[in-house]
């Protein structure tokens, strides 16, 4: 039924889509109960289409070009491969690029099934990371194969791509003898590799870290393109995840704007000599997420490829691989599993020119102070009806996922038509290199009243046609945004994802990777997933209560929660002032809905509803001011919930980079009161039924940061006296430790542990040695500065980390000496203090 619905979609949309008049799309239905998730396509000498798939199968497809798409027949030729994201036919032989090797597939007995798989090459690294795809597979005139290797992705939240094995993040040449020759680095997820009819190698890449949007790179030997991770090789020195490398960067020929392409697949050139319509010689790109084919108008300016991108044909399914058939049919291999996509999820769409040439741009040539556009038909618009906006924009080249388009003010431009051309001109000197130019035309009509098919075209200007050569890159280097460690400063993670040590009470809760809604039960259950976030807290059936080990006062409290359908729970600040967590209907803003404040009889409804879905992670941020209690127990200021936001902290998504700050705010300055109020008390989470939590963190609202010179303790000497530290009753300083670091800071006989060891049960940072253990990692990350406050009174010791009280104990009378020493457990431990 689903397939039927999807067929209707293609048919229906095709009839609405003006592109469909000129290019008819037809779906080649795969056999039932199969997944033809296309990774590579090529024709065999006898005209049979060979298709490799992500499921490691190779199919032979007959009658692909018959008039009736239903005539198509599929034959399984090979299976059991480790993916097949590239396929080539060379000298009649069939080659498939698997994740770990390039293979030749042979049918020795001629029964139509592959019985022998020969390894041609496997000379690249494979760490086991799920994202280490290998893409290909064009072949040059000398018989060399070309392939690209994906980076590994370890950290879902920040998407630092890593080169975990040799040559990952590189483009490779593989000789006919199987010798692997790395030729260029700087790729992230280079899902398209193609040789142009001119013999130039092009690689497409997908937006993400160090890749502001999808790019089409002209690859030359020895060059570095964009993502630094691959620079690890050949020296095996891992580059920084966040600091731009000192390497000459070659830009792509074209940046394809995010609105057009979010996951670019491979490229194909129309070599049909006009059988496919008026764009003979043009380059086409598969676009998976938006389900379309993009057209690229490439030209050489000052010896380098650059050019424009514009939409070509929508509603073709999740386009991954393109191949032109000898008769001028464009075959589009589809897949979307786990990668996102639009329309058909697998199989092949074929697109054919109907002969009805639309009004469309055929050529976009950069000229001095503008562009010369050529159209398929004579421009017949009245001059007064013609208009255009032309805007320059560039991108940030940074470690963050993608980049917004930094738009500049529109340039004034004039349009002059002449036959089937249109001259677009801006004032002299206003067009600049190192920018993309977005031209949006209006009122362009061709012969016979044909409206222009696509009015937007984006041209990547690396070089102008005149003037001095430009050096500015469109993806410009910027001051790196805050690192993850810097972002983590000031926070105390109550739940460290590895233990339940941050909780004084946790009956009914357990650690579970990647919870989700289980099947039809509607309940939350642990789920195995490849990109599982480790160590969520899961309560599979309530009621249950979770009480933090650490109290909080004035604090920003944040957490992420997942509810089942109909789930209900409360976050009780200081165990008293409640915020409702509830699986709430979209738009519901009553006093029972998600985000409502509940304190005794006081109920405050959220002013808007921004909760997402059952079975999804939602974020909650609360800024809380504790009641101000005087020594006599009276109160001179009520507790206040200063601000509540739900789902402000969502996955970074380009469309959400610029948001209205009030978009997610559901409460502001609500005074609350309860019985038996305290200046500091633990947080309580109470649930009526299933609930999953993660990333529960406190941050004191009071700034406790210290600014002093940094002192680094390293080397074989393990004991360091710190006579100069200003200690009376209270010692304040900031500390930083690397992974596995272990040390003790002793203040007048009382030891405070500094520890980033992975071992369970060990006293973690903030513990009072032998007196009050902190058994969870309070600091979210290694190498993150945290503020330490040690109070050593006559019979009491207290430790605060980032302003949060984490340990206290009765202690013997002190000597009164302000002796402070630091003892490192081993020479590998590096401690920094300031």
């Amino acid at each position, binding site marked *: 039924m689903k397939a039927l619905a999807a067929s209707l979609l293609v048919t229906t949309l095709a009839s609405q889509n003006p592109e469909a008049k000129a290019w008819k799309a037809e779906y080649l239905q795969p056999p039932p109960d199969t997944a033809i998730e296309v990774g590579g396509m090529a024709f065999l000498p006898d005209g049979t289409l060979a298709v490799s798939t992500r499921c490691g199968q190779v199919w032979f497809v007959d009658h692909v070009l018959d008039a009736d798409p239903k005539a198509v027949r599929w034959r399984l030729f090979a299976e059991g491969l480790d993916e097949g994201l590239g396929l080539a036919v060379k000298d009649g032989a069939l080659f498939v690029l698997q994740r770990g090797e390039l293979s030749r597939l042979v049918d020795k007995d001629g029964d139509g099934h592959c019985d022998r798989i020969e390894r041609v090459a496997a000379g690249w690294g494979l760490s086991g990371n799920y994202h280490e795809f290998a893409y290909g597979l064009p072949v040059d005139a000398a018989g060399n194969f070309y392939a690209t290797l994906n980076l590994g992705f370890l950290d879902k939240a920040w998407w630092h791509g890593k080169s975990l094995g040799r040559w990952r993040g590189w483009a490779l040449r593989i000789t006919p003898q199987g010798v692997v020759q790395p030729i260029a680095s700087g790729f992230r997820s280079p899902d398209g590799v193609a040789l142009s009819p001119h013999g130039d190698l092009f690689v497409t890449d997908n937006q993400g870290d160090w890749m502001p949007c999808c790019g089409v790179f002209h690859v030359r030997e020895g060059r570095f393109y964009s993502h630094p991770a691959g620079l690890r090789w050949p020296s095996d020195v891992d580059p920084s995840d966040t600091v731009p490398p000192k390497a000459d960067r070659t830009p792509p020929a074209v940046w394809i704007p995010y609105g057009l392409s979010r996951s670019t697949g491979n490229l194909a050139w129309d070599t049909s000599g006009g059988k496919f319509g008026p764009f003979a010689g043009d380059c086409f790109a598969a676009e998976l997420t938006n389900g379309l084919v993009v057209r690229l108008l490439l030209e050489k300016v000052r010896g380098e490829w650059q050019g424009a991108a514009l939409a070509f044909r929508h509603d073709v399914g999740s386009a991954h691989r393109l191949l032109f058939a000898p008769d001028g049919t464009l075959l589009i291999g589809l897949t979307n599993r*786990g990668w996102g996509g639009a329309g058909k*999820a697998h199989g092949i769409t074929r697109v054919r020119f109907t002969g009805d040439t639309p009004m469309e741009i055929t050529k976009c040539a950069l000229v001095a102070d503008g562009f010369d556009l050529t159209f398929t038909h004579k421009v017949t618009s009245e001059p007064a009806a013609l208009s255009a906006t032309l805007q320059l924009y560039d991108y940030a080249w940074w470690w963050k996922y993608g980049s917004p388009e930094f738009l500049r003010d529109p340039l004034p431009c004039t349009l002059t038509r002449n036959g089937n051309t249109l001259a677009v001109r801006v004032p002299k000197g206003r067009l600049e290199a190192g920018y993309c130019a977005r031209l949006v035309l209006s009122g362009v009509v061709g012969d016979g009243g044909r409206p222009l098919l696509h009015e937007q075209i984006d041209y990547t200007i690396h070089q102008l046609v005149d003037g001095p050569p430009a050096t500015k890159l469109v993806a410009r280097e910027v001051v790196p945004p805050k690192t993850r460690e810097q972002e983590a400063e000031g926070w105390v993670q109550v739940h460290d994802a590895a233990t339940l040590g941050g909780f004084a009470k946790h009956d009914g809760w357990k650690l579970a990777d990647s919870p989700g809604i289980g099947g039809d039960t509607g309940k939350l259950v642990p789920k195995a997933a490849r990109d599982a976030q480790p160590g969520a807290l899961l309560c599979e059936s309530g009621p249950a209560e979770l009480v933090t080990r650490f109290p909080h006062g004035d604090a920003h409290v944040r957490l992420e929660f997942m509810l089942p359908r109909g789930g209900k729970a409360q976050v009780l600040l200081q165990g008293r002032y409640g915020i409702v967590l509830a699986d709430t209907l979209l738009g519901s803003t009553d006093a029972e809905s998600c985000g409502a404040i509940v304190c005794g009889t006081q109920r405050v409804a959220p002013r808007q509803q921004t909760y997402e879905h059952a079975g999804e992670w939602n974020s909650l941020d609360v800024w809380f001011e504790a009641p101000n209690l005087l020594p006599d127990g009276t109160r001179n200021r009520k507790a206040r919930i200063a601000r509540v936001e739900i789902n402000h902290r969502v996955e970074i998504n380009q469309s959400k980079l610029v948001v209205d700050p009030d978009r997610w705010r559901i409460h502001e300055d609500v005074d609350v009161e309860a019985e038996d109020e305290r200046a500091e008390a633990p947080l309580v989470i109470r649930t009526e039924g299933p609930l999953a939590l993660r990333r529960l963190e406190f941050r004191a609202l009071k700034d406790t940061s210290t600014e002093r010179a940094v002192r680094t303790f390293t080397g074989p000497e393990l004991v360091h006296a710190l006579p100069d530290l200003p200690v009376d009753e209270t010692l304040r300083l900031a500390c930083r430790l690397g992974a596995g670091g272990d040390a003790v800071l002793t203040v007048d006989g009382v030891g405070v542990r500094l520890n980033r060891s992975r071992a369970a049960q060990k006293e973690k940072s903030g513990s009072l040695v032998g007196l009050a253990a902190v058994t969870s990692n309070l600091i979210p990350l290694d190498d993150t500065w945290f503020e330490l406050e040690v109070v050593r009174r006559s019979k009491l010791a207290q430790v605060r980390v980032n302003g949060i009280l984490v340990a206290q104990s009765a202690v013997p009378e002190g000597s009164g000496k302000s002796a402070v020493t630091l003892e490192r457990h081993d020479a590998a431990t590096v401690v920094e203090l300031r």
Partner: protein
Amino acid sequence: MLRHLTLLSVLLAPLAAQDAAPAKPKKKPDGRNLFLMVCATCHGAEGKGDGPLKVVPRPRDLTSGKFSFGNTRKAILHTVENGIPPAMPPHKDLLNEAQRLAVVEYVMTLMPEQIEMDKKLSTLVVGERPVFVRGALDGHPRGLVLGLPGGLTLAWDCENLRLLGIREGAFVDRTDWRERGGTPLELLGTAWPACGDVAFPAGARVDLRATEVEGQVARLEYDVRFSEGATPVRVVETVRGVIAPEGKLVVRTLTTSAPLALLASEPKAPVAKGEVWRASTKRDATTWVLTTVLAPEWNTAVDARVRAEVAR
């Protein structure tokens, strides 16, 4: 909100009038047109939640496939009929049943089509011929698995051709066919204890060259070299499974292109580990036969069977 409903009422007026018109032949309502008239003001013409009426909170992106009450027809019909207060009004009285169903059908088509690979689809079975499967195995990114008719499975690390183990029972679940791919193969069935071996001395570089299936016989070909630039010795290893009354046997015959003392560590006589017995026989200067037997004891019948298989 008031503005929203008012505008919606205006938009729906022609629909109601059309409904009331008498005696026209009944035509199936056009879900897309209805969607554009009724839903697109909030959900956008393409259902992406970006309609011209900027409702807060933002309307659902219907193309995401995520819905408040699930993405079944029944659930979406419930939403269309009853709305989701306060932003989405009920449509029970504004659209007749056929129109509501047509809208639901259209909304279903906006969702991304997904290939759903459950374990049933991703579990491979072995038929009458041996099957080779390549993919990651836990801790071994380049793994190779061979399923033999009769239910025996062998797994190797392709980096060094070390046999990782032998199992019997069901074959392999391709977990990498789910989500984005790249996860290790899950070997099904029951592992025979202590079946792994290191066939080659340390320092030897072993490169897989080919796998082949010919009839009931599966074959691996690999090169062994002891130093860079040295002429490799080609090893052809045929693998057979034998299910006999005396026990279950895996017989691996290694034929080398040159004499190669590569199996020094292998036991010459049967050695038991649990119920698994391993034996190796040097048939001639370039042929070794490695036999692994699952049998409760090594008796004369087993011995005879192994000898017979080695001699084949």
